[in-house]
């Protein structure tokens, strides 16, 4: 196409510049006006070969400008392309009515626009004298438009081309969509396979955890556990499936009973594995492993002192060999006939003594947590019980139970709770203490394992 004289009416400076550059590059001469009125002036100054006009413009719209060109005898033969969004069928009627020769939809492809220009310039416009009045109904409205046959044909073709282009875009978009859907479906099925796998693994873990929890329950007193000349009550609430706490009591020989609460640091599987391992050494049965009792050469049973037990445990369970895990223990041996309690503490909270008469008091023994310091000898303390006296062993999950404001329950509350309930049966006092702890931790519940072991010495009357 030889260079022609193009007039652009476009209010957007940027749009106009882009179009101007494209046309200049194609060898055309370009003039630009930013509204219809100015464009009309330019057209009258020098007749252009072709006009490209936007529709939305200030001062004079594209339709008005087009009508002015097409009713000007000197200009009506100049082909005019309207740039429209063609968002409404009525746009076509308006274009026809204004006498536009062609449409290009915005945003336009520059090559497509050049193609349009070429075909328009190659096809001579019809004689305006042939113009006839057409009546069309669009969207329930009747329009009467004056248009030449060539003009109608051009518009029809451009509209159709536009529809075809849009349709192709739509088809391409559909294909993309369909591809995306396939991909999504594939991802979905992969996800679902993965989910199945997770479910399977989860089910296995739940089974394993249940089995482990069962093993751990074996560390606790059996239902029928009892001591001579003493009543015992206990509560144990792990904060997860697996706990680091455990407690137990049992006769060691004809005259001695052992009782303890152990608290392994941390929670969950590592702590519970350690608890089970420690538990094996705290057996009342004479075995190779038991630290509590051993057989003398004459076959009789020797009961180890609490200090010996703590010292031995510390020798066996150095924290560095158990990935930093350590535990605290309060271990007591009650001489059942006399009510004398010997005990040792490996960093464990002091026991609370609630005498049958008189104020309650804490009794602790010095001693680092088990596993903290190699090769230390643990101290031993003793407490003489009177008939009807009670002692309570517990884990720090009791005294350090936190309320909403992160205030610990504290030792004072323990004393108050157990003094208030001292007239009640032992089991009720233990249950009452647990209820106090659980109440304190509302609404989140305890964040640590809670263990409570209460013992009341009730010697037979002599």
């Amino acid at each position, binding site marked *: 196409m030889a260079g022609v004289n193009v007039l652009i009416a476009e209010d957007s400076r940027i749009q106009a510049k882009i179009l101007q550059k494209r046309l200049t590059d194609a060898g055309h001469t370009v003039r630009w006006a930013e509204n219809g009125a100015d464009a009309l002036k330019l057209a009258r100054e020098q007749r252009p070969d072709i006009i490209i006009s936007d529709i939305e413009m200030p001062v004079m719209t594209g339709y008005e400008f087009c009508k002015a060109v097409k009713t000007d005898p000197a200009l009506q033969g100049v082909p005019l392309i309207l740039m429209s969004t063609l968002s409404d069928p009525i746009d076509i009627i308006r274009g026809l009515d204004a006498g536009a020769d062609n449409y290009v939809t915005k945003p336009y492809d520059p090559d497509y626009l050049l193609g349009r220009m070429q075909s328009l310039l190659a096809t001579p416009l019809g004689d305006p004298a042939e113009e006839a009045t057409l009546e069309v109904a669009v969207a329930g409205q009747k329009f009467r438009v004056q248009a030449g046959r060539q003009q109608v044909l051009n518009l029809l073709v451009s509209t159709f081309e536009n529809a075809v282009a849009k349709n192709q875009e739509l088809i391409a978009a559909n294909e993309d969509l369909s591809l995306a859907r396939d991909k999504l479906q594939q991802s979905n099925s992969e996800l679902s396979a993965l989910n199945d796998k997770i479910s399977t693994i989860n089910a296995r873990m739940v089974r394993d955890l249940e089995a482990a929890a069962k093993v751990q329950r074996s560390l606790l007193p059996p239902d029928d556990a009892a001591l001579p000349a003493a009543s015992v009550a206990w509560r144990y609430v792990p904060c997860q499936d697996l706990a680091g706490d455990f407690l137990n009591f049992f006769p060691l020989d004809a005259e001695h009973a052992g009782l303890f609460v152990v608290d392994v640091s*941390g929670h969950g599987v590592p702590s519970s594995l350690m608890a089970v391992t420690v538990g094996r050494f705290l057996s009342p049965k004479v075995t190779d492993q038991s630290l509590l009792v051993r057989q003398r050469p004459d076959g009789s049973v020797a009961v180890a002192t609490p200090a010996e037990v703590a010292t031995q445990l510390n020798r066996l369970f150095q924290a560095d060999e158990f990935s930093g895990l350590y535990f605290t223990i309060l271990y007591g041996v009650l001489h059942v006939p006399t009510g004398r309690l010997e005990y040792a503490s490996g960093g464990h909270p002091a026991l609370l003594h609630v005498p049958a008469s008189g104020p309650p008091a804490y009794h602790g023994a010095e001693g680092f*947590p088990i596993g903290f310091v190699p090769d230390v000898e643990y101290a031993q303390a003793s407490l003489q019980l009177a008939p009807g006296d009670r002692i309570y062993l517990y884990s720090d999950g009791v005294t350090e139970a936190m309320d909403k404001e992160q205030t610990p329950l504290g030792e004072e509350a323990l004393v108050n709770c157990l003094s208030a309930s001292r007239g009640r049966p032992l089991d009720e006092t233990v249950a009452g203490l647990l209820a106090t702890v659980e109440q304190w931790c509302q609404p989140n519940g305890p964040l640590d394992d809670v263990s409570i072991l209460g013992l009341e010495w009730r010697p037979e009357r002599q």
Partner: protein
Amino acid sequence: MDAYRRIQTGKTGDVHLVVFKDKKILDDTTLDEIKKEIAALLGKATGPDVLLDFCNVEFMSSAMLGLLGQLHRKISAGHGRLKMCNIRPEIFQVFKLTSLDKLFSIHKDAPTALATFT
């Protein structure tokens, strides 16, 4: 910019200063990160002198004691010294309960603690 998320570090003479940033040292993740960061700080140093500053710490789980124990054993084994300072009464209670106030060297504040290293 500080290189660590959980601890702020400094050095006074030969003493490594470690200030815990957390208000609460309760969950295993925090504990693990603290452990790794201290290990990274001390690197392969044998027997370093270390001062742990608890000024920000309001709550601490007993598992943290385990970490302090490990650190204590490791540093003592190399003839280094581990000291602690700015421990709130509530937290000191945890040390006292476990008799660890007698194992660890605990001081009122950083200047007092630093003076004892000489």
